[in-house]
């Protein structure tokens, strides 16, 4: 790969997916794109770049973009974002939405589905107290391929052992050869669609909870700011935003404020400005 090829690919990936590569990530490009080069019978990365430059080669462009995105995910990843869901967000929203009984959740980088399915399992575990409530969980991702895997809900033995309690495996999965398949009742709680966060996503409507974890880290500063500000516009005033452990809004936008000692949890700024110190009481107060 020549330096010019590398520069072209960096520019291409930045424009397509927002992925920012520093000037020493040639190995990453090689390891992720060589399988495509081989599969297509090309001579090397340089030929791939030449093909990408031909206008209209959308199929190849998507393949390259998707191959470069990181799709690692596991059930209940990092644990605390799911504790926040059970302990902070749900109690508050169950009060605040008591009349409407409808809560919308967006997993903005759903990858292979572990995050939205983890939320769905938590809701299922709560059982009768959610009777009559409607939960909409929307999972989006840049990559159609990973969303196909999410929709299939089929995971390897390794994947179901990182973070998923064994009792939940027994309860919500069936074994199919060396794969574990999530139950139809959990699968039907999540809807997926392909979405590039660089594009306008306002058509998704308003959400009470947005999980946008481990995706901003790949973006440059202006892109982070833009995505956060557009996310703020579709987050309910008393809603929540979850970011990954290595991410923050601090120094990027005033649209969200961190929630006390709840790591990774943010609320729209106007809400944070209100006087009540406790979130549960605060959301309850809004209804009354």
């Amino acid at each position: 790969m020549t330096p010019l090829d590398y520069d072209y690919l960096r520019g291409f990936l930045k424009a397509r997916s927002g992925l920012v590569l520093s000037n020493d990530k040639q190995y990453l490009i090689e390891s992720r794109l060589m399988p495509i080069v081989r599969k297509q019978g090309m001579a090397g990365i340089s030929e791939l770049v030449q093909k990408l430059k031909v206008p209209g080669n959308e199929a190849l462009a998507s393949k390259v973009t998707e191959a470069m995105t990181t799709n690692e995910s596991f059930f209940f990843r990092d644990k605390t974002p799911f504790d926040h869901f059970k302990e902070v967000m749900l109690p508050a929203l169950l009060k605040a939405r008591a009349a409407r009984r409808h809560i919308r959740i967006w997993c903005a980088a759903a990858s292979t589905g572990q995050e939205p399915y983890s939320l769905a399992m938590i809701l299922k575990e709560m059982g009768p107290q959610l009777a009559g409530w409607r939960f909409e969980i929307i999972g989006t991702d840049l990559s159609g391929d990973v969303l196909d895997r999410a929709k299939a809900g089929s995971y390897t033995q390794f994947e179901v052992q990182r973070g998923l309690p064994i009792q939940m495996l027994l309860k919500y999965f069936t074994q199919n050869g060396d794969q574990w398949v999530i139950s139809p009742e959990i699968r039907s709680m999540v809807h997926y669609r392909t979405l590039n966060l660089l594009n306008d996503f306002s058509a998704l409507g308003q959400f009470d909870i947005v999980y946008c974890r481990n995706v901003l880290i790949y973006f440059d500063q202006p892109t982070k700011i833009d995505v956060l500000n557009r996310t703020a516009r579709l987050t309910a005033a008393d809603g929540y935003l979850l970011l990954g452990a290595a991410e923050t809004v601090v120094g990027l936008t005033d649209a969200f404020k961190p929630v006390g000692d709840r790591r990774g949890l943010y609320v729209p700024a106007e809400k944070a400005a209100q006087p009540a110190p406790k979130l549960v009481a605060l959301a309850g107060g809004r209804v009354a």
Partner: protein
Amino acid sequence: MKTCLVVDDSSVIRKVARRILEGMGFQIEEAEDGKKALEFCYGTMPEAILLDWNMPVMDGYEFLRELRKLPGGQAPKVVFCTTENDVAHIARAMHAGANEYIMKPFDKDIVEAKFAEVGLI
């Protein structure tokens, strides 16, 4: 320092498990079958037990049932770690009082996730 009793008839598995668990801050004791593990527990109850299923003399399932009958035998957190990876085995183990279940092959991430799940770390 918490003690973890590693019960497996394979010395290789015991060595791998020891390395992972020592890295997580556990003091390790080893037993090569259920009977030797039980004898250890008569003396001292460990905080954690990583337990293989298929072993000579006394298998892991039988060990677990005996352990849970002992005075203080409810205390240790027992994590099965076995090649038995079907629903029937897992359900049987949980019913007999296992706290978590690892299907071999395993790695450090899985052991950490499972030990965290039962509150050992």
